[in-house]
C-alpha cells in the first residue's frame, strides 16, 4: 500500500500563486513601474499614500491584497523547497517547516496588516 502524498495542498497554493504572479504580477509591474511614473492613463495621485490608504481601508481590496501576498509567498516557498531538493539538500521536515512555515507566517502577517488597514 503506497502512502498518499499531501503535496496537493501546497501544490494548489503554488499553482494559484503562479497564476496570480503571471497575471497580476506583470500587470502590477506595468502599472506601478511604467504607466504611473510616465503619467499614462493614471492621474498624478494614483499611487499617492492617501489614495492607496483609502482603497485598502475597504475590506475587499484589503483581503484581496493579503490573499495575493499569501499566494505569492506559497508559490515561492514551494519552488525553494523543491529547488533545495534539486540542489542535493534532501527534503526534510525541518526544511519543509522553514519553507512553508515562513510562507504561512508571512500570510498571517499580511492578513493581520490587512485587518489593521480596515479597522484603523
Amino acid at each position: 500500500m503506497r502512502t498518499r502524498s499531501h503535496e496537493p495542498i501546497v501544490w494548489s497554493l503554488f499553482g494559484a500563486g503562479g497564476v496570480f504572479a503571471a497575471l497580476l504580477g506583470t500587470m502590477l509591474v506595468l502599472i506601478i513601474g511604467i504607466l504611473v511614473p510616465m503619467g499614462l492613463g493614471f492621474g498624478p495621485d494614483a499611487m499617492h499614500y492617501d489614495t492607496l490608504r483609502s482603497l485598502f481601508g475597504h475590506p475587499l481590496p484589503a483581503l484581496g491584497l493579503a490573499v495575493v501576498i499569501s499566494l505569492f509567498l506559497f508559490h515561492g516557498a514551494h519552488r525553494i523547497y523543491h529547488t533545495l531538493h534539486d540542489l542535493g539538500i534532501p527534503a526534510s521536515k525541518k526544511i519543509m517547516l522553514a519553507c512553508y512555515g515562513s510562507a504561512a507566517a508571512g500570510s498571517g502577517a499580511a492578513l493581520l496588516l490587512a485587518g489593521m488597514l480596515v479597522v484603523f
Partner: protein
Amino acid sequence: MSQTRTIMIECLRYDPEQDQAPHYRTYEVPFTDEMSVLEGLQYIKDHLDGSLTFRWSCRMAICGSCGCMVNHQPILSCQSFLRDYYPARIRVEPLEHFPIVKDLVIDQSDFLGKLESVTPYLVPAQPLTPEDGPNLQTPRQIEDYLGYAQCINCLLCYAACPQYGLNNEFTGPAALALLARYNADSRDAGQKTRMEVVNAEEGVWGCTLVGLCSEVCPKHVDPARAINRNKINSTQDYFLRFLAPFGRGS
C-alpha cells in the same frame, strides 16, 4: 560510397566479476557518413574487441534496446550518426542512474517493476469474450492516447531525469506516461487501480517538471505533460474524497 574517416570512440568498460571499478578504453573506428554510433560499436565488437558488450536489435529506433549516454546525453545509438560528432572523439557510457550489468548493458529490473506497478494493460469494465466483437474506437478516442502509446521503454527518460537520479523510488517518466496512456484509453476502466500510484509521493509528486524526459524522448512521448496533467487529477482526488468519502480511493 562516401569517404572513410577515423573517429575515436571512448567506451566505458566494466565487468563486475573482474574489475574493481569502471574504466575507459579508446578505439579507433573507421566510419563512413551513413554509420550510426551503434554501427561504430558493432565495428569495435567485430574487429577490435569482441568482449565489448551492448544491447541492440532493430537498428531503426523501434525496439528501444540501444540507449546509452553519448557525450553525457542519453540517446539511441542507432539514431545518432558518427559524422555529427567527428572530428571530436565521442564518449559512450551506459545509461545513467542504472546499475551496470556489463560495459554498456544496464540492469532494467527497477524499471520493469515500476512498469508492472502502473497496470500497463487494458482493464475492461466487464469481462469480454471474442463473441462481444471488436472494441471499436473513433479516431478522436485513439488520438487521446496514441502519443503516449509510442513509448518503446528505451529508458532515455530515466537517464535524463534528475529526480530519478536523486531518488530512484520515483516511479519515473516512462511508467507514468504509460499509466496516462491506459487511463486515456476509452476501452479501459482501470483508472481507480492506477490512482494509488498517481497519488503517492513516488508517483506524480516525485516530479518537479524539469522536462528533460520529454526533450530526450526519441518517440516524442512527452512524459512531463502526462505526469503534470495527472497532478491535476491527483489534486482533485485528494480534495474530492472528502466530499464523497465512500466512493473514492484511499
